């Protein structure tokens, strides 16, 4: 598995640390949110068989956290970008 780091180029996945689902949002006010919302924030993570939007850190490279789109079945990494940079619309494949 290889991940195309926007700074370092395509590097082996061994250099990266997996950070789980991307963009998990903490409830704005933990004191007033329901147990269900808090449970969802703490414990429920997307776990699809197929494309997954997740975070990886290039630990043994530039050290940046990245947004990565990886297929959990084929382990094909479709795209990697700095956090917050929107993913470009996929080109129609030739």
């Amino acid at each position, binding site marked *: 598995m290889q991940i195309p780091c926007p700074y370092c180029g395509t590097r082996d996945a*061994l250099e990266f640390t*997996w950070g789980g689902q991307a963009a998990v949002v903490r409830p704005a006010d933990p004191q007033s949110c329901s147990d269900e919302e808090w449970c969802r924030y703490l414990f*429920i993570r997307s*776990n*699809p*068989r197929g494309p997954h939007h*997740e975070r990886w850190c290039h630990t043994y490279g530039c050290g940046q956290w990245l947004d990565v789109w990886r297929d*959990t079945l084929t*382990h094909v990494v479709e795209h990697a970008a700095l956090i917050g940079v929107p993913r470009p619309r996929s080109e129609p494949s030739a």
Partner: protein
Amino acid sequence: MGRMAHSILQLARHAISGHQRWPPFWRSPQARERYDVLIIGGGGHGLATAYYLARNHGIRRAAVIERGWLGGGNTGRNTAIVRSNYLAAPSIRFYDFSLRQYEGLSRELGYNIMLSQRGVVNLAFSRHQLRLMNRRVNALRHAGVASELLTTGQIRRLMPLLREQSSAGRRLFGGFIQRRGGVVRHDAVAWGYARAADALGVDIIQDCEVTGFQTRNGAVTGVETRHGLISAPRVGIAVAGSSSVLAAKLGFDLPITSMALQAMVSEPVKPVLDVVLDGAVYVSQSDRGELVIGGGTDVYTSYAQRSGIQRVEDTMATLIDLFPAFGRLRFMRQWAGLVDLTPDASPILDSSPVNGVCLSCGWGTYGFKAIPAGGVAFAHLLATGASHPMAQAFSLGRFQSGALIDEGGSAGMDDREPLL
């Protein structure tokens, strides 16, 4: 249909005919249109559940449907270790019940599961690790489960090939053993339960993938499969690493992530290891002489039944650091299974947000040793609609209430110290 007994006479008779005329162990029926209970997943848990449904609760209009073949998932991919050396009281009770069932299972099923209670040993490489083990031994004894701390001298006698001190600075401080722990022929567990469930009238349908569910007013009415619709008012899901996929089809989320857990076997050698070593790397020697070795899960979610190279390397490095002699062995096979990990490393045995659907999942890295207890408890849940007294702690609601049962240490997930 009578259950065929295995005897020397049978063996001799079939030897004469070149072992070509053994009858099949179970039927391969077409799915009926309707069952009282439908179990998804023909691994150890699904098959054991079917058996106990029929035996303990008299529910014989039941079926097990399996996407692949029986025991082809984690039941046939694990390292076959059985033990009950857990930490929290509900876990110890549950897993020791499981181990006691395993102790009588060959007799109960009339099928040799080849239980070998050779002892499961964990090693401590710091005084802190040894202190945690002391706590665990005390917790086990308090719950009435025998286990004992080991001195380095005792460990030396149990595992003569173990290197106690490595150039990397690792030093053996002690360990502990559960002598009733050991290994089981894992396929035999699936086959034994399948045969016994089939003899009680349960249909076992392989090569039958679930494609969807039918519900009415928030209650399940049937399951859509590759072989067509099967109606059932109660559906049990026991599909390990695929639990989230089926839950998504039903419209709810689970606190589960799926990861690949791998194992490998070496070429066969003469007896070199009498006990099961458990911990950051776990290894035992099979009856054929192969070393059966496992390590941690991959470090990212996966639905591929193969593992990344990183864990192969970690596992091997740790093994060879412990047993330098094993560095000369060649390896024959390496594979992985998909484990369903929960945040507290304890299972979920509960009804689901969809009426009629019950869950047996979250077994994570130790589903195999839980099969008999999981089967008894899941059958109870499916038959009565109420949690088995021994499984009440393993609720889905604990993630909201906060009553977590942290068994990360028992799963080998968080009290491992890096050895190198």
